[in-house]
């Protein structure tokens, strides 16, 4: 850490980690409702707990992106942040919006589109938060050094804000509603979020492997080119069965298959950089998360995405547990892991600690990753069985669900393991390492 103002990232990292824990807790609640249906069914219905689960995820990932940007941009731009004060106000406003949304949900105050359940006024607060953020980081970059990394990161972050505006548009024609709903959801995770992910990954590679910036930045443009050339028209994989012309089956199938390419390129990129870089950075845990991120994103988004993206397959699996399996591994691999990679890298620098709790952090990595992987398999098997019974044999939904109990129990078990891993991650990031505490006690003269 070279610039004092990078410290504002601490607010965002703390907020993100808190919401991460909340997300998993609510995940455990809905995982439990699935296997013990009368659990909380009056007090906290499934739909309310689910919107808290998904919204907490999205908000903490965005908060993590903001924090990562506040850490990364001064260092890249080689100048203090334009306004640390504005960044702190922005944080509290965002946290307030998120908290108000959750409390509102508990009292059944919400809108009714998946992931976009926030009442209008909270959506507008989010827009204001985004504007404060974009103003702050853009001004910082304008007065400082301009690198490909900040360029791509800013482009991604501006894109996030621009596409979020489509959440304000809710036509009464359900087909049109869906068409533009995907402009937020798909063009986020398979578009502009990939820009954010790739640029953070590029930053971490430069820091952790010592590789030449020129090489990294060329890769960066190639990766994000692959991402957007495929991902934009890849939106077609959501336009198969919602009342649009059949040509989307071809366009969606072809281009979304190509979406695997950027994720594959990120795997090659990270491993090549580590191979060629040759620097052995002290923060091994951050490197583990960075490599894990590209690999898990490749499996979650690339492999599990491809699994059901071709129109004839999607015809059978659309809206089953196969989708749930993919959604979990993809979000975890790509966006949870890129955030944790950045936090793991940044925290010791921000707190001026040696990266001490590395071993614990790496345990967190393996336990959480195992949990999510096992969950993905359980849901995939459930989804395949469901697709066959319901979509091929034509059995009723509820009857089919009764056949899937075992898989749902395994998913819940995997969720508990995931939770344990998450606690370890948070602990390792927040609590100073014992070695450090002992060392400090030894060095400091008694006062």
């Amino acid at each position, binding site marked *: 850490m070279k610039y004092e103002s990078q410290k504002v990232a601490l607010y965002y990292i703390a907020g993100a980690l808190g919401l991460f824990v909340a997300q998993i807790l609510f995940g455990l609640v809905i995982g439990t409702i*699935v296997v013990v*249906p*009368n659990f909380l*069914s*009056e007090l906290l*219905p*499934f*739909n*309310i707990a*689910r*919107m808290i689960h998904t919204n907490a995820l999205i908000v903490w990932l965005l908060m993590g992106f903001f924090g990562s940007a506040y850490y990364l941009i001064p260092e890249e731009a080689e100048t203090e942040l334009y306004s640390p004060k504005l960044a702190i106000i922005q944080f509290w406003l965002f946290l307030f919006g998120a908290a108000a949304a959750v409390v509102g949900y508990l009292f059944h105050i919400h*809108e*009714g*589109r*998946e992931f976009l*359940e926030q009442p209008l006024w909270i959506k507008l607060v989010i827009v204001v938060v985004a504007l404060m953020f974009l103003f702050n980081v853009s001004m910082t970059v304008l007065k400082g050094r301009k690198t*490909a990394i900040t360029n791509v990161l800013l482009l991604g972050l501006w894109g996030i804000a621009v596409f979020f505006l489509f959440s304000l548009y809710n036509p*009464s*024609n*359900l*087909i049109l509603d*869906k*068409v533009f709903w995907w402009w937020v959801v798909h063009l986020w995770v398979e578009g502009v979020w990939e820009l954010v992910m790739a640029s953070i990954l590029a930053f971490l590679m430069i820091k952790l492997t010592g590789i030449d910036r*020129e*090489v990294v*930045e*060329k890769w960066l*443009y*190639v990766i994000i*080119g692959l991402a*957007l*050339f495929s991902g*934009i*028209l890849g*939106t077609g994989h*959501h336009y*198969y*069965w*919602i*009342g*649009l012309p*059949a*040509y989307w*089956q071809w*366009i969606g199938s072809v281009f979304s298959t190509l979406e695997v390419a950027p994720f594959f390129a990120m795997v090659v990129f990270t491993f090549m950089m580590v191979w060629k870089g040759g620097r052995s950075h002290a923060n091994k845990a951050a490197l583990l998360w960075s490599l894990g991120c590209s690999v898990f994103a490749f499996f979650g988004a690339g492999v599990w995405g491809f699994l059901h993206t071709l129109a004839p397959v999607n*015809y*059978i699996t*659309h*809206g*089953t547990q196969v989708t*749930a399996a993919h959604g979990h591994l993809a979000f975890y691999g790509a966006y949870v892991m890129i955030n944790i990679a950045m936090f793991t890298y940044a925290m010791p620098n921000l707190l001026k600690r040696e990266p001490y709790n590395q071993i614990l952090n790496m345990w967190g990595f393996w336990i959480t990753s195992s949990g999510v992987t096992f969950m993905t398999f359980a849901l995939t098997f459930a989804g395949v069985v469901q697709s066959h019974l*319901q*979509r*091929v*044999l*034509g059995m*009723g*939904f*509820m009857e*089919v669900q009764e056949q899937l109990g075992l898989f749902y129990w395994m998913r819940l078990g995997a969720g508990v393991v995931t939770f344990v891993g998450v606690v370890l991650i948070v602990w390792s990031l927040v609590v100073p390492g014992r070695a450090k505490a002992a060392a400090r006690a030894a060095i400091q003269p008694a006062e």
Partner: protein
Amino acid sequence: MSETLTKSAARNIFYGGTAFFFVIFVGLVAHSVSTVNEMAINHPVTPSVARGKEVWEKHACIDCHTIMGEGAYFAPELGNVWVRYGGRDDAAGARESLKLWVKNQPSGIEGRRQMPHFDISEPDLDALVDFFKWTSEVNTQNWPPKVSG
């Protein structure tokens, strides 16, 4: 990576290509939207259908159910529930059964997933059913494959 591709070339390809694909995408979506609007001439979103969609959203039914395969996977697909309830042959009967279903929740059956009780007025229930009927008539390229949803 190969020496022949310079960083500025990679950057320019990225910007040019992105603009190119985005323009194509917007063009195709514009065409699709025009087909949707054409369909809406013979299959209009009446004020009642629009109201039904609002009722649907007010209670966040989407976070338990799917509609045209999108939503949560906790409860049955409702895009074709009108068809499943026999609406094509007996519209009045299907309407009554659907309204009755919503009114009679929760089932309270031990060990079975529960749908909460929602206080929905009679006209709103009718609007909700109109919304289901409208949705079931959308040309979804024959999805879902079975009436089970």
